């Protein structure tokens, strides 16, 4: 299999004992998926042979160092990692590169969409180029996506994701690994290994556990990772870091619950510490590692990227102490505030229609202002419409079930003279009766007028409604009118009888009382 070929070429040199287990695992796992991956494999193999050799070596060195620290767990993780790497990227590429990111994007949370689209479009181009590098982020992303369901693990996955994205091949940071090992949020699945193992191992392990669900996510992550890998390959460390940060923020946002808390904790810890201290929190560790790595690889591009990162509206939630920038409380707080603003801007971007393409705080604010103004204008227009409609219509036409049926004929038609109303209603409802709007109720009144007894019998109802109306001018009066309207309509259809009307009124009153 060509998988074995390129894997063997890269990994065999790095990890002596791995290839045998790896090849066996690869054969077992990746075989069914390779049908689609053939072309990818070729591209990957070509690239891998050229570029990933040193990466693999670094991976191998890192893994050896880490494993030396952790012992058996790391080794097992590595082995499983390698095997998972096969299955991971093979499953990731089971479908064309474009498709995996899209469903993932749709499935993502809305706040992530702004950034989720980022790895998507960028994926196709670097798709078939840096497979092994991207394999790690797939796991991270997949693990991150998976951990959405599980509270703590999500943060750990996010951290892993960040670590993974940030250190593809830069795992020679023993100190950073140590920091990772020392600080962990507590991913139940992975225990301590993911921390220490840096990127690939953690991701592999999580991958082994959540392979199925990770497939689409990992592919998406992998695609994004390829892009970052390419950038890294071109020694644009800062860009890849920014991408990694974006993805981290994306993954973090995708969690829904955990990332905000973790990010906020990160922000707080950023403010508290100089980003040099290790706080229990993977984000901090990630920050630490990133900081170290940045300092290790290129300080300048990273600084530039950090400098221009806050400005565009697509800011990253993750607060990090950027190397070369002031780490005092002021700038950290400023950065936190900026990121808060950007976060809310992104949320508003989803709210306001047609703002997905808009970038820049000023333009976004303009759009928001326009949208709020348009909404308020709509409300004014609708209120004007309702104001003109109201006197013409009987409000009782719209009967909301939970409204209580009480009240008297407030909305009576002006056609009927007040005397009839007064005759019908012995109580002082005249001021309310005179603004006659409803039509049916007036008929009802006339009916009531004819049998005086009816009015007496109906008086209690109206008295009740009158009391309530006097109490608070509630809608009960209207409700009774609506009821009366319905009753009257019904009575019109059938031969009207005062008795039936009275019964209906009683029945309506029954409804009123409870």
């Amino acid at each position, binding site marked *: 299999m060509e998988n074995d070929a390129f894997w063997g070429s890269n990994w065999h040199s790095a990890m002596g004992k791995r290839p045998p287990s790896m090849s066996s695992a690869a054969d077992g796992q990746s075989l069914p998926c390779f049908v689609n991956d053939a072309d990818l494999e070729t591209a990957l193999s070509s690239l891998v042979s050229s570029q990933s050799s040193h990466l693999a070596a670094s991976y191998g060195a890192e893994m050896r160092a880490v494993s030396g620290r952790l012992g058996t767990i790391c080794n097992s993780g590595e082995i499983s990692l390698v095997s998972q790497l096969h299955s991971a990227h093979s499953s990731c590429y089971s479908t064309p590169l474009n498709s995996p990111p899209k469903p993932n994007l749709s499935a993502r949370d809305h706040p992530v969409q702004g950034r989720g689209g980022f790895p998507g479009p960028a994926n196709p181009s670097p798709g078939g180029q840096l497979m092994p590098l991207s394999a790690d982020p797939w796991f991270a992303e997949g693990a991150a996506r998976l951990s959405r369901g599980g509270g703590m693990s999500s943060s750990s996955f996010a951290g892993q994701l960040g670590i993974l994205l940030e250190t593809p091949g830069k795992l020679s940071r023993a100190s950073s690994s140590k920091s990772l090992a020392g600080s962990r949020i507590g991913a139940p699945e992975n225990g301590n290994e993911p921390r220490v193992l840096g990127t690939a191992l953690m991701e592999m392990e999580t991958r082994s556990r959540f392979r199925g669900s990770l497939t689409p996510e990992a592919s998406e992550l992998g695609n994004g990772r390829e892009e970052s890998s390419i950038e890294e390959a071109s020694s644009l460390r800062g860009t890849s870091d920014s991408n990694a940060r974006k993805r981290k923020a994306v993954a973090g946002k995708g969690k829904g619950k955990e990332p905000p808390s973790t990010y906020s904790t990160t922000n707080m810890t950023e403010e508290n510490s100089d980003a040099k201290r290790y706080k229990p929190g993977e984000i901090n560790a990630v920050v630490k590692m990133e900081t170290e790595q940045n300092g290790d690889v290129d300080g300048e591009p990273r600084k530039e990227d950090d400098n221009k990162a806050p400005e565009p509206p697509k800011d990253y939630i993750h607060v990090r102490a950027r190397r070369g920038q002031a780490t005092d409380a002021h700038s950290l707080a400023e950065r936190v505030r900026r990121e808060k603003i950007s976060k809310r801007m992104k*949320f*508003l971007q989803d709210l306001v229609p047609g703002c997905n393409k808009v970038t820049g705080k000023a333009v976004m604010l*303009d759009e928001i202002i326009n949208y*709020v103004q348009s909404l308020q204008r709509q409300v004014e227009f609708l209120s004007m419409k309702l104001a003109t*409609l109201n006197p013409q219509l009987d*409000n009782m036409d719209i009967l909301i079930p939970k409204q209580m049926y009480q009240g008297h004929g*407030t*909305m009576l038609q002006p056609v009927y003279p007040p005397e009839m109303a007064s005759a019908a209603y012995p109580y002082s409802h005249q001021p309310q009766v005179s603004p006659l709007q409803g039509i049916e109720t007036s008929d009802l009144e006339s009916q009531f007028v004819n049998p005086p007894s009816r009015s007496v019998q109906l008086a209690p109802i109206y008295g009740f409604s009158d009391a309530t109306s006097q109490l608070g001018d509630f*809608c009960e009066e209207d409700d009774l009118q609506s009821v009366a309207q319905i009753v009257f309509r019904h009575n019109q259809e059938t031969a009207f009888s005062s008795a039936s009307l009275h019964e209906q009124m009683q029945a309506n009153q029954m409804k009123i009382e409870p």
Partner: protein
Amino acid sequence: MAVPNAVGESVLAGGGERKRKRGSEPPLAKWRTEGEQRIYSSRLIEALRRVCQSSDSAPSASSSDHVRSCAVREAADRVLAVSARGRTRWSRAILSGRTLKHRVRPKARRPKPVSTACVARAAAQRRKPPALEKKTRVLGRLVPGCRKLSLPSLLEEASDYITALEMQVRAMSAIAEAFSAAGSASLPPTHANPMRTL
């Protein structure tokens, strides 16, 4: 639109702002629910009836459509603020000082020269560009009760206000449509009835 993932939504709907420190998303989900709109519609209809009664009882002054539409609009906004349950600044501002918006607003426009000074200072600090500052002021004026608010909180208030306004527009348009439909349907028979009975 803004639909958090299934787990998040369930948690958020159940616990409110348990997991999210900012709590900006769960309240917005509240404005989108069907039940909330129904509650708002019922309350709005009550308020509309009251407005009609008051306007009809004093036919001389308030019979003009403009006054009545203003009254309707204010009633709608008040009902909306009540539906917000007082958790947001704009709702509290609406409920506490509804008249302020109409009367004191011209005075509120005065402190524009002050804002330029602030703008200059902001430009010097380069904390926020003056364009953003201006737009922040404009947005603060649009959202009731959020004039002197910082941008992050203003954005949060604006997002909640936008969702509430959307719900208000939906509810009012539904009511207006129902009214017009009912009016067109019921007018012919109602005209016939009085002739018969009288």
